[in-house]
């Protein structure tokens, strides 16, 4: 290898900073600044439509949220959404990934097909499902043909949230399938070959080799999906606007209403930070319980 002169001290750093600066500037302007601003706003009664400055109110906004039944009901709906979708999304994504991993004719078609919903905008998907779920929509048409009762899906407080959850599982699985597929591809083939020589069944291969070695990928899928699900908004905004009877009112939809219908940006920021704390806590717990232990890595 040719020997190279070390660059003069200081240059590398400066050049590196220069090349990084577009990203740093964008991140500072559109990432850090709003982050810091909303943190400040959460301690004030900031409202953009009020003339004059905003008042520092300390923890008042946080206290208000914690005693507001609407906030708790939104948090409850969000929890139901997260708990009710993530196991299904993960299981479906894993099943799909295992199904489309081996080489077979038309494999690419299936992979692309399952991934397709992730490419389509959530708003478009929501509009399509709104039509499918309508009282006289395609789903009820099918049920009617089978002689089954036809619920008012999005217009019934009992079925509205589950209906959105089913759509989310369907729409999100393909994306996580691709990530899990990458994890599957990374598992050395030799392990399966050796196991088969030892006479291991397909199920044993799956539980003893695939699952343990897929753990880091599964953890990533779980954490990313939890963070995304906690922020569920567009589906609710397009399909139900939080109704009926606030049964689909999620935390982000609630804070959106506080910010852009009531102009209560200080309070909305506090709600956002409460959600941030919940998200951080959940991600921490997931990492602690699922992270690869030294024994498992061995």
């Amino acid at each position, binding site marked *: 290898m040719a020997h190279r002169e070390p660059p003069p001290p*200081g*240059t590398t*750093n*400066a*050049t590196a*900073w*220069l090349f990084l*600066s577009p990203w740093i500037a964008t991140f500072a302007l559109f990432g850090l600044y709003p982050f810091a601003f909303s943190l400040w706003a959460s301690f004030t009664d900031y*409202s*953009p*439509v*009020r*003339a*004059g400055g905003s008042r520092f109110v300390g923890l008042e906004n946080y206290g208000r949220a914690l005693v507001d039944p609407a906030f708790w009901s939104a948090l409850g709906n969000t929890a139901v959404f997260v708990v009710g979708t993530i196991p299904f999304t993960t299981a479906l994504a894993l099943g799909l990934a295992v199904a489309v991993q081996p080489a077979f004719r038309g494999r690419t078609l299936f992979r692309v097909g399952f991934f397709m919903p992730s490419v389509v905008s959530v708003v478009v998907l929501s509009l399509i499902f709104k039509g499918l779920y*309508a*009282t*006289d929509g395609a789903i009820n048409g099918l049920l009617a043909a089978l002689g089954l009762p036809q619920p*008012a899906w*999005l*217009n019934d*407080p009992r079925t*509205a949230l589950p209906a959105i959850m089913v759509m989310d599982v369907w729409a999100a699985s393909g994306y996580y399938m691709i990530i899990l597929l990458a994890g599957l591809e990374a598992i050395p083939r030799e392990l399966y070959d050796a196991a088969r020589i030892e006479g291991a069944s397909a199920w044993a291969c799956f539980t003893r080799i695939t699952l343990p070695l897929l753990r880091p990928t599964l953890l990533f899928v779980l954490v990313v999906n939890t963070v995304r699900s906690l922020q569920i908004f567009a589906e609710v905004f397009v399909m*139900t*606007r*939080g*109704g*009926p*009877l*606030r049964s689909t009112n999620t935390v982000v939809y609630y804070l959106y209403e506080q*910010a*852009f*219908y*009531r*102009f209560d*940006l200080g309070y909305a920021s506090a709600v956002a930070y409460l959600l941030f704390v919940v998200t951080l806590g959940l991600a921490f717990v997931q990492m602690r319980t699922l992270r690869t232990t030294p024994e498992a890595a061995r």
Partner: protein
Amino acid sequence: MIGRRAAGRAALLLAAVFAATASCARAGHEIVFWQFWPAEVVTPILERFEREHPGTRVRMEQLTWQSGLEKITAALASGNVPDLCELGSTWMPRMLDSGQLADWSAGVADLRPELRGWELCTIGDAVYGIPWVMGTRALFYNKTLFARAGLDSTRPPETWEELRAAAAAVHRLGGGVSGYGVQSGERYVLFKKFMPFAWGNGGRILADDLRSAVFDSPENRAALEFYVGLRSVGVMERQDVLDRAFKEGKIGLQVSGAWLFKSIPRDAPGLRYGVALVPRPERERGTHASFAGGEVLVSFAGSKQRQAALELARFLVRPENALALAASAKSVQPAGVGIDTAAYYREHPDEALMVRQFETAVPTPNHPAWVDMEAAIEDEIEQALFDRKTAAEAVAAAQQRLAELVGKR
């Protein structure tokens, strides 16, 4: 070292770009106008204004109903507000309370007898905008279904009892046909469908001085009982689903808006339908009330071209210009008094009915906490619609929430 100098140069360049864009925005006599209507409808009107006012340019930006309010909120937060802005009546109470709107009292005094809807932009004697176009809700009914149900399709129901009877007759046709479209499950819409019956029955929301809630009244209770009762001769759904079902000929009657004049010819050109005033409680009692909404033109205290903006607003509300917008959009009618005698409305009697409906329509109270009040009323109406509360309980609960909100700013 080289890197640092380059970074410095880049920063200078960036600053120069910012300075250039900033000065561009200030150059010339330019009115920045934010509004919600399609550009092809508004641009010709703005071009006429520019021809009438040489040297003045209008830079129009079209907002969307979905994100327009967010954009206006952001503009107010940053202090970078447009000169003239269209605001929906729902947002007006809070905007009026904000102290951020420009006072136009002196500039619009002569217009006051010529336009309706000043309640939307007035506090006391001070006027903070000009009503541009108005929107209300009326009764739409399917003439084919009326005929099939043995009803006279030239005689729409005028009273609650007739409405219920007509809905029941259509509902009995069966085969996927519903008598009445009961609005539910959607915020910011349900209110406009229920209150026409409450107002028509003499019910009110707040006292005239806006200091106390008067929602818990026999009038409002009876109206809610009547509205909830329509479920048995109809279907409960969201606005867009009901509108689609109406166009497909599956709903006999529903209260809806003038946007149907645009979408029925497009989606269901063969539909035989009629439009009527919202029925009143009895032939000799109550009124054909409805919801009075509208679009108001405002300028902000922080706007740079407030005088020019007022001139543009006065131009836009001229009968011929407001009519050009209304005739194309169809979902709204000009705020001008007596506009229904215009040739256009003589040729379009269904649309003219909306103008008449507006005469007995009721504006919402200009209370700063109005958005919360509307939500409180909607929540409780929904409780009754989903059988979680009786009409009396729901009205009492709404009263309690309104009483709490009335003292808040």
